[in-house]
């Protein structure tokens, strides 16, 4: 039983990583007042370009870097559309997802088209700092990026948001851009920056899948994880640390679901119930938070001076 739980936790951390990265990215976007539905596409493109560059250059880290940069670029594109031009945020985001998906698959086809097995690369190796203690090893044998996500990105994202002037600007720009503007904050620049950071993190989440978890790129590599991340942002009340708990709950239920199947349990309910659970939990969390859910007040509203 203990083993089962330790295994489960180890898997949960791994499964949560890409979603966590994306959710923090989305948190930044939404905190600045922009709902970025481009998340799914940005992750997909990150997964592709990371793989592509790593494959062609032989350097995983170069691939990862380029992936993050690509996310930044799509974040900036989202900013151009929604911040500068004031285009409807839903549609811009969906458009970017379409664009990213199309571009990735187009380029994938031209470069790797029609192979019967997916092209693969030597992926990132897992770290095993406690090789000699079996149970601890099960927990801690993780990819570097998982460590980075949980131990660096989460605290850093929290610190940046709540303890720095930049974070103060992001929060104020998402709450009341008029006020921020009048206080001398460059609303446009801050939103651009938040979307860029957000995009980078989303793409990092995608690249984790292709460069670490799989070492390959295929269609369906993201499989809706971006939409899950959006749910988690709200579940986490736009707070990176709480988003982490949301990501863990999601990762935990997915991992548990697979393990229960493995145990050959014939459940009286369809196993889809487990898959739907994180979504339902998020909705319930929202209901409980009710009108107290601290939506960034300026979410979805373009800001214009005149």
């Amino acid at each position, binding site marked *: 039983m203990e083993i089962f739980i330790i295994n489960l936790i180890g898997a949960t951390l791994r499964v949560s990583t890409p979603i966590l990265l994306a959710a923090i990215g989305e948190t930044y976007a939404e905190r600045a007042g922009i709902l970025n539905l481009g998340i799914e596409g940005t992750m997909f493109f990150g997964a592709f370009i990371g793989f592509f560059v790593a494959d062609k250059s032989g350097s995983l880290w170069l691939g990862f870097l380029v992936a993050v940069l690509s996310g930044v670029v799509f974040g900036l594109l989202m900013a151009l559309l929604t911040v500068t031009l004031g285009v409807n945020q839903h549609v811009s985001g969906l458009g970017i997802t379409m664009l990213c998906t199309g571009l990735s698959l187009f380029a994938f086809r031209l470069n790797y088209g029609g192979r019967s097995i997916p092209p693969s690369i030597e992926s990132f190796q897992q770290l095993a700092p406690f090789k000699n203690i079996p149970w601890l090893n099960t927990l801690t044998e993780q990819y570097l990026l998982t460590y980075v996500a949980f131990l660096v990105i989460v605290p850093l994202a929290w610190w940046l948001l709540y303890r*720095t*002037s930049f974070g103060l600007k992001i929060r104020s720009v998402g709450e009341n851009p008029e006020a921020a*503007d009048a206080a*001398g904050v460059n609303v446009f620049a801050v939103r651009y920056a938040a979307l860029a950071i957000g995009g980078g993190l989303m793409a990092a989440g995608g690249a984790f899948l292709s460069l670490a978890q799989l070492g390959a790129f295929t269609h369906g590599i993201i499989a809706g994880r971006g939409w899950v991340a959006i749910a988690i942002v709200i579940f986490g009340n736009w707070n990176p640390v709480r988003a982490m708990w949301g990501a863990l709950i999601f990762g935990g239920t997915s991992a548990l679901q697979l393990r229960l199947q493995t145990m050959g349990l014939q459940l009286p309910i369809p196993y889809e119930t487990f898959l739907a659970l994180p979504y339902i939990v998020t909705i319930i969390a929202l209901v409980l938070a009710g009108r107290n859910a601290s939506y960034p007040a300026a979410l979805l509203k373009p800001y214009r001076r005149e």
Partner: protein
Amino acid sequence: MYIVDMLGITKTFGELVANDNVDFQLRKGEIHALLGENGAGKTTLMRILYGLYRPDTGIIKVAEQPVEIHSPKDAIANGIGMVTQHFALVPPLSVAENIVLGNTDGFVVNRAAMEAKVAAAADRFGIVIDPKSLVRHLAVGQRQRVEILKALYRNARVLILDEPTAVLVPQEVDALFETLNRLKADGLSVIFISHKLHEVTQITDRVTVLRDGKLIGTVDTKDMSQSQLAAMMVGRETFGVTRKDEQHEQQPVTLRIDNLCAKNDQGMPALTNVCLEVKAGEILGIAGVGGNGQKELAESLCGVRDCASGSIQLAGKELIGKTPAGFTQAGVGRIPEDRHEGMVGDLTVTENLALEHLNEYTRSGVLDHKAIRTRAEELIHQFQIKARPNDPVRTLSGGNMQKVLLARVLSRNPKAVIVPQPTRGLDVGATDYVRQQLLEQRDRGAAILLISEDLDEILALSDRIAVIYEGEIVGILPAGEATPERLGLLMSGAVKEH
């Protein structure tokens, strides 16, 4: 020496010229009023100075040096601070965070240090505020203090206040003026926008008057009387309305409020056992310092707030539990406290005029556009609304918006009229117009409940005056017996009279 020089400023919005070659000069250490009717271009000029708008042409000099002000950041760098009409604060953030926003010392924000620094600044300028509290928990007057402190914290040498007193109660106005005088003594310059001429004559040194975007002139305040200033603004001299005194004792009670209790948005009791009667042909004024339950009272009587208990009767019919539409149908005419809350800005004047009575223009669900349009044209003409039927309401000036609201309500000859703050933010001309309309309604026989924080307005219009304090009616006086002093005592909660 001029600390600010704005020369030849022109600003157009589409076809509209909001500022037409305006010159504006501000001396060091003066309080300078900017005066003009609604839509005269005051706010526009100030937004240009603060970098929120870019002028089409014109030069700005600060301390005699030409400067480029592209954004509030530039303005702040040039020592200019602005408190806008609608507060520019971030409600979920603390006072300290709001104040340092955009002006933090370094990248890392040390909370304790930040709060200490803000507290020190508040001390220095004599502004009482707790840096730790969240802005969303503050009252309007306190929020304004945060705004002023925010500007001062950034070493503003020029402080722009756009209609700062519109939202303040008399005591708060006094406190504000005290602060302004102290700042003036420190050598700061203040630009003060207000529609209240007595305030202008009381506190300012000079006055610049705009009309239709054009500069009319700049004068020394001490040389001018209120009516002279008014004449400069609109080009005519006589102002004010006169109330025909009549005896209302014989009239039946139209609106009866019994033991009304209601809660505020935070769920705290805001009204306790309010009992009021308004007779036909009577204006009952509700005086009181803002935030004592006026908002809740008005909303309860408009049907948009659920009452905890009590009764509201119109000509004997109970209204409690009715929807806003039910209130209207029963014959209650009402305007909202914030006119923007009564209008859908993106709908046209015509549509807004019809909005409250759609059923009458509807046959089996289908709208009679022609009838709506005809009616709108009539009302626009009758109420002298300066707008075309198809203009989106958001493009109207405050005064005209108010006229649309009044037209919508008064054209139906309601039995009772609820008017919270009917002239807030309106220029003298528009104010007179609105007051005149209310008096006409009274003479027609309507029961009017006037809720206002402006004592002058209460005294000018009311037949009887009730004073509200902490959600209770602490006294009701006939107009003849009411003096500002007596009302002031009641409003401060020091005494109760029944």
